[in-house]
């Protein structure tokens, strides 16, 4: 069993669906942080069998909006002074900007250099539509769970 130190102050993103840890790391732009970040892949999970975990030391103000889109299973834990002070599931973002790209070849975004904007069209089924052409975004295998 691999041991990663507990963090004193920071954020732990737990219960990430196994295999999505790197995608979360990329989309949260954790590579741009100057602090200690640990990605644990395929950790043992009683609930899911296995899971990914990300531990971020010393940073509290990370924009986690996109997390709800990638993985609603994830749990966000805020740690202060070595103690868990907040725990919760990420909310589904209403708007995704430059997170995913429209695959509709007839969409203007296929030829024009503009922001890729998607809006949440159905909260229950986690569905998003392109702001420009309204085509629904379909997640690809490995991109996160679809409901």
């Amino acid at each position, binding site marked *: 069993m691999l041991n990663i130190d507990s963090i004193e102050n920071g954020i732990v993103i737990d219960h990430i669906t196994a295999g999505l840890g790197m995608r979360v790391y990329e989309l949260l732009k954790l590579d741009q942080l100057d602090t200690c970040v640990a990605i644990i892949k395929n950790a043992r999970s009683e609930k899911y069998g296995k899971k990914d975990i990300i531990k971020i030391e010393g940073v509290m103000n990370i924009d986690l909006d996109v997390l709800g889109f990638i993985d609603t299973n994830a749990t966000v834990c805020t740690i202060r002074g070595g103690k868990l002070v907040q725990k919760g599931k990420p909310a589904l973002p209403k708007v995704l900007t430059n997170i995913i790209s429209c695959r509709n070849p007839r969409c*203007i975004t296929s030829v024009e250099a503009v922001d890729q904007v998607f809006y949440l069209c159905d909260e229950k089924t986690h569905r998003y539509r392109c702001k*420009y*052409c309204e*085509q629904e975004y379909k997640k690809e295998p490995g991109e996160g769970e679809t409901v």
Partner: protein
Amino acid sequence: MRHLIDPLDFTREETDRLLALAGRIIEDPAAYAHRCDGRILATLFYEPSTRTRLSFESAMMRLGGKVLGFAGADSSSATKGESVADTARMVSAYADVIAMRHFKEGAPYVASRYAGVPVINAGDGGHNHPTQTLTDLLTILRCRGKIGGTTIGLCGDLKFGRTVHSLIKALARYEDINFVFISPEELKVPGYILKEVVEPSGHPYETVRTMEEVMPRLDILYMTRVQRERFFNEEDYVRLKDSFILTRDKLRTARQDLAVMHPLPRVNEIAADVDSDPRAKYFEQARNGVYVRMALILALLGIESDILEA
């Protein structure tokens, strides 16, 4: 600044005020003949169009304004690789309002984000055509004196027809609408339109395979073109196409106050012998398109200042 990009960009109240203005223009066009003196409409049509472009140009000219633009991407800077955003910024210096048709879905929305003047979506690929929706609503209003309390049969290609989807969205905001979808299985209304628009509206709807079985109950029959290329094989097309052709004979069981509508162009889905029937309203519908666009231009330019909210 307001634009018209999506059929639902205007609230129900704004739409009603706009339709009322179009009605006043119809009653007294002379009173509006110089309301746009000195104003310029740019028609940026990246793909061919007859009715929509001429209708916009006629609307601006009937208001006393002038028109400039292009018809076809070949005659625009798009061939040099100019972006829609740059074109919109540039044309904003030349005109007071822009009507854009583009083969890419969402192009008018991009234009609206960069233009310094109001932008009207005159059709973006297979996506939206909001001025056709306003035209349809005005025609229903003129034929029936109201929009709510209507049983509307939508017939033909309900899967790919952008005018049908936009009209369903717009009608869903009115009271007591009864939708009757008449189409072959291959061209039925997409599930998301039912789930996201029709069902949440609470309006009843039914799906049938022939127009004859519902004809006596309809207030409006909205015809669309069934295109050969939408079918997987020729056999299915030949088998089904006649079910969606309106003839004078099929109108026998229809009510006398039925209004037959069609966004045009028609090919063969309405037989020529229907044209002389007083219930055929599709050419009147095309005429209404000019008046509703006149009202729209006046509203977006703020010349009629009480139509749109700030």
